């Protein structure tokens, strides 16, 4: 075998692939060959590094040099300079936006310093299409241990002791769920992996499946052994083609060497995994709707109980777990429940993966121990707010969650803390907002999403959310009243209390939490007809400040609707009845002579 002295890891996640990382890999390979280095340098396509903000990423080992925003045409230079001559390619190194210094070694980047990677342990480290690399990281050793040395009860006890809670949103204790499914008596049971991932902006589960598919397969087999199931089903949205491909490759490889299929490792245990595709409906992430969708029925939820653990897929006991939940399982078996329980807070153990997005410097995928504060995530790992703006709010929990403010920044993140401050963990979306974001519009955005995604089966969700949306829309149009705010709160609470499934039971949360935390902003809309963040167009007026206007005619010429009039060298004037509030004049004016009021 070739004796590689250097490894070049190229990110092959969906984000980096969209920026031609596949071509980068090909070019690196070609360049390595052209230099006759194929025996000493290995190019590996890995899963997501998490640092999506600056993708595509190429990492060189052993020196941990981290190249960002690499283009295919940079490949030759990287090989010629870094590999052949040993000089870093300066212009591709990462520059810390707050300190404005170049950081070459990924170990020194704030983004990685506070992270603890359990679920993402192999992402950006191994080649996801090579089962040997997974095995070299103790892959399938947990399954071997379970089958060889542990009874199903012992496996379940280990899961219980670890304190692992579901990462799909509910936070239900995983060991307990396994116990319930085990207790259900049936010839046939199923293990289902929920890879629907419907939260807008979330890509935690996709990245795990793309970067480390075997960890999920191994965990499903372990779960099958624990609950007494021989069939695993992964429900994955068809919009995740790369994850689907990698899963297919992984399933094939695992079958080939007998880690899936009949008589696994000679123990008489049978387990195999199949894929089921979803069409990308948010409600199909809800477990009962998911099961119906897999059965070929409409993706609509049904009342619980019966819980899937009792009556699930094809009416058989079914254990549904989220991708990230499962990715933790093999590590817990290998390192022990005690080790896992030593990480995190009192009631939330281990780590959580978050998809950081919004007005933040380091958009990307991160994994931190439970108990890390929002401030650490946003400012230390996320690198703070973009363009030096002021932090305003952070939204966690997606369409079911809430918006938290400055005063919550030092809250240690865990399931219970987030609930107690009026938001929730959810599946791990985290969207950061700055002073330019209008909280009424943010609430409206989420409601628009739930409105689209509501299956329409129950009245409170179907009609109630529509009414909520209409009220919000009215407020952003400047036609709201103070009574509307009370109505929002009352209706929101009714929808929460009376909806059939988790979608409606949580959909008013973005409104209720913004009403709680940003009431003044709502008041400004309904009482003063003013949008403090300057986002609600209907409430804005662009005005020309006569003293500052030089009469250069630039705005006059740029205005798309000819709403600006005036003579050269004398102050211009905006006709409010014609203005469409596009903001072009405001952006173009060189003299700051246009104000938003």
């Amino acid at each position, binding site marked *: 075998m070739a004796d590689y002295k250097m490894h070049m890891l190229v990110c092959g996640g969906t984000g980096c692939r969209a920026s031609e990382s596949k071509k980068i890999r090909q070019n690196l390979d070609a360049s390595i060959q052209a230099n006759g280095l194929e025996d000493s340098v290995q190019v590996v396509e890995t899963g997501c590094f998490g640092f999506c903000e600056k993708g595509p990423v190429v990492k060189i080992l052993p020196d941990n040099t981290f190249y960002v925003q690499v283009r295919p045409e940079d490949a030759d230079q990287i090989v010629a300079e870094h590999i052949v*001559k040993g*000089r870093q390619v300066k212009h591709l190194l990462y520059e810390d936006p707050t300190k404005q210094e170049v950081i070459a070694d990924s170990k020194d980047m704030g983004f990685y310093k506070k992270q603890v990677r359990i679920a993402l342990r192999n992402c950006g480290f191994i080649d996801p299409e090579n089962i040997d690399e997974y095995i070299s990281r103790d892959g399938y050793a947990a399954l071997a241990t379970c089958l*060889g040395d542990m009874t199903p009860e012992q496996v379940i006890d280990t899961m219980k002791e670890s304190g692992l809670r579901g990462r799909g949103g509910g936070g239900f204790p995983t060991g307990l769920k396994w116990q319930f499914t085990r207790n259900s008596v049936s010839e046939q049971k199923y293990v289902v992996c929920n890879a629907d991932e419907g939260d807008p902006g979330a890509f935690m589960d996709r990245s795990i499946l793309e970067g480390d598919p075997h960890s999920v397969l191994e965990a499903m087999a372990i779960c099958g052994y624990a609950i007494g199931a021989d069939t695993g089903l992964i429900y994955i949205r068809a919009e995740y083609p790369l994850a689907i491909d990698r899963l297919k490759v992984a399933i094939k490889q695992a079958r080939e060497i007998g880690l899936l299929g009949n008589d696994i490792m000679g123990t008489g245990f049978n387990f195999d995994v199949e894929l089921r595709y979803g069409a990308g409906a948010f409600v199909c992430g809800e477990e009962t709707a998911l099961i119906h969708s897999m059965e070929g029925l409409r993706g609509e939820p049904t009342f619980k109980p019966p819980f899937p653990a009792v009556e699930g897929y094809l009416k058989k006991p079914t254990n549904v777990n989220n991708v990230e939940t499962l990715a933790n399982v093999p590590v817990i078996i290998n390192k022990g429940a005690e080790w896992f329980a030593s990480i995190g807070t009192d009631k939330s153990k281990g780590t959580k993966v978050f998809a950081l997005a919004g007005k933040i410097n380091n958009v990307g995928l991160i994994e931190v121990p439970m108990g890390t504060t929002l401030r650490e995530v946003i400012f230390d790992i996320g690198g703070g707010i973009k363009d030096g703006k002021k932090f305003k709010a952070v939204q966690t929990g997606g369409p079911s969650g809430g918006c938290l403010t400055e005063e919550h920044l030092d809250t240690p993140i865990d399931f219970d803390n987030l609930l107690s401050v009026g938001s929730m963990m959810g599946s791990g979306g985290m969207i950061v907002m700055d002073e330019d974001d209008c909280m009424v519009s943010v609430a409206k955005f989420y409601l628009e999403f739930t409105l689209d995604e509501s299956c329409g089966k129950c009245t409170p969700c179907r009609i109630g959310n529509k009414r909520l949306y209409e009220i919000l829309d009215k407020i952003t149009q400047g036609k709201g009243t103070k009574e509307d705010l009370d109505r929002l709160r009352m209706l929101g609470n009714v929808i929460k209390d009376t909806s059939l499934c988790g979608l409606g039971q949580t959909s008013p949360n973005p409104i209720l939490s913004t009403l709680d935390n940003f009431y003044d902003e709502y008041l400004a809309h309904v009482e003063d007809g003013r949008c403090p963040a300057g986002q609600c167009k209907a409430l804005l007026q662009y005005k020309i400040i006569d003293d500052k206007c030089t009469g250069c005619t630039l705005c006059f010429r740029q205005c798309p609707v000819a709403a600006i009039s005036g003579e050269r060298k004398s102050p211009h004037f905006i006709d409010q009845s014609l203005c469409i509030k596009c903001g072009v004049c405001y952006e173009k004016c060189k003299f700051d002579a246009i104000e938003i009021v």
Partner: protein
Amino acid sequence: MAKVKSLADLKKIKDEVQSKMKLRENSEQPEKMVQVKVAMATCGIASGAKETMNYMIEEFDHQSIEAVVTQTGCMGYCYAEPTIEVTLPGKEPVVFGHVDKKKAQEVIETYVKKGELIDGVIPVNYKTIDE
């Protein structure tokens, strides 16, 4: 392909890919092993730094010493090229000058394995920014 029948079989696969993965595993935690940085700017390369680097990688491998050998830019000791900086776990970095193959062997045998200093140590005349 042979079926995996036990934990031992998994271990066998693990051992087989070990040599390929070791470099990746080690670079995760360089502070726990011997770290060698070879100055590989133009002057270093011209005086044989590349050969020194290859020799050290092979020798560490050969002797099963857990080490990470990386290249770095000019360290500023052009008069003493090739230069290498060696950091033993928990110790301060030490810079050696004029490290050809023979010297490299001496560094490994005497400094890395026994912790005894040898001739050719260059007094460190700089601090890196992260100190």
